[in-house]
């Protein structure tokens, strides 16, 4: 409060000029002695601490999303666990669709995996026959085998692996019922027929020859083997 204003105010209250001046001096002393500044350093330290801490609190949001993040992680773990378990499943199992889905994704990312999938189908046929599963499942799996092997051949990625697939089917054939045997024979025949227009992909059980362009002899040897099985 400025001294002039104070003097005026005091005079309104009935004080003389001299009395008002005396009190004004007292007020001046208070202002003069009473006002002192703190160091700028202390002020800055406080501001850094307060606002620095608050700035960190702006990043509280990850905590808000923690349940969602945890849920997503659990889903990922469960999903990856299911995919791993599904790899051993057979047609008709609950997890089998997951196995097929994971295969499709894998092939779309790396087309060369197609050959391995053909072998898998043949292995499934073999396992189904051994476990005396529903013949319908065997038939469907054989159809899938045909389709996959055809696809692998047409895309030129069946080198060597179809041989293993054929071997699996031949093993399955030994343990199969009459109906199943017929289906397996048809599948192998189909594979062989289509192979006539696709040199060197099926090598039968005499591996290595197909690579030299002797596909007809290979397929014949495969046929011979099957004839032997038929005779058995």
């Amino acid at each position, binding site marked *: *409060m400025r001294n002039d204003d104070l003097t005026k105010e005091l005079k309104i209250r009935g004080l003389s000029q001299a009395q008002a001046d005396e*009190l004004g001096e007292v007020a001046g002393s*208070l202002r003069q*002695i009473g006002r002192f500044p703190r*160091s700028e350093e202390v002020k800055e330290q406080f*501001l850094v*601490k307060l*606002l620095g801490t608050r700035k960190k609190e702006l990043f509280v949001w990850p905590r808000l999303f923690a349940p969602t993040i945890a849920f997503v992680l659990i889903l990922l773990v469960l999903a990856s666990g299911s995919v791993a378990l599904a790899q051993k499943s057979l047609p008709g199992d609950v997890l089998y669709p997951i196995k097929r889905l994971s295969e499709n994704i894998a092939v779309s990312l790396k087309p060369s995996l197609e050959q391995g999938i053909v072998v898998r189908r043949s292995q499934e046929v073999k396992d189904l026959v051994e476990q005396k599963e529903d013949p319908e499942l065997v038939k469907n799996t054989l159809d899938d085998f045909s389709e996959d092997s055809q696809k692998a051949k047409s895309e030129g990625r069946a080198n060597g692996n179809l041989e293993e697939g054929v071997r699996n089917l031949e093993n399955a054939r030994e343990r199969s019922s009459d109906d199943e045997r017929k289906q397996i024979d048809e599948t192998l025949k189909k594979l062989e027929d289509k192979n006539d227009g696709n040199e060197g992909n099926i090598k039968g059980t005499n591996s290595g020859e197909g690579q030299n362009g002797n596909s007809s002899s290979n397929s014949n040897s495969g046929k011979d083997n099957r004839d032997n099985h038929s005779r058995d």
Partner: protein
Amino acid sequence: MAREDDFSEVYRKYSDKIFRYLYWQSKNFHLAEDLTSEVFTRAWESWDSLRKDFLQAWLFRVAHNLLVDWYRKKKEVPINERHEGFYDENLLEKLGNDEQVDGLWKALNSLPENLKRVAILRFVEELSAREIAVILSVSEVNVRVLQHRALVKLKEVMNDAK
């Protein structure tokens, strides 16, 4: 960053005033600094809802209430729990060795609490009678009466001291 900048500006402008008000009331340097930190921490916590046109009065009112609470609780709760305690040790030393400061403290301390508060707010910090009325929850007329009484009493004490 505008929010932080605005707050920093307010802190730089008013923190000395708040500190001095608390210091002259308590003559406890560290308590005054801790309570000042608390006042501005609360201001920052309520920053978005604070009326910026009445900020000074709000700050002094919070400071006043904190000090009253602190005395009421008989100093059981150390106020610096929330604050790291940045103290201007040079100022502490300077105030401790200054005879004029000591004389003013003795004079102020001779006043009843209500006169002392009005004297500090009106003559040291130069707040308006209206603002003081809001801070101390009294009428503006009452503030003017109290400020007059405070000056008369202080003059007597100072004259006695000479």
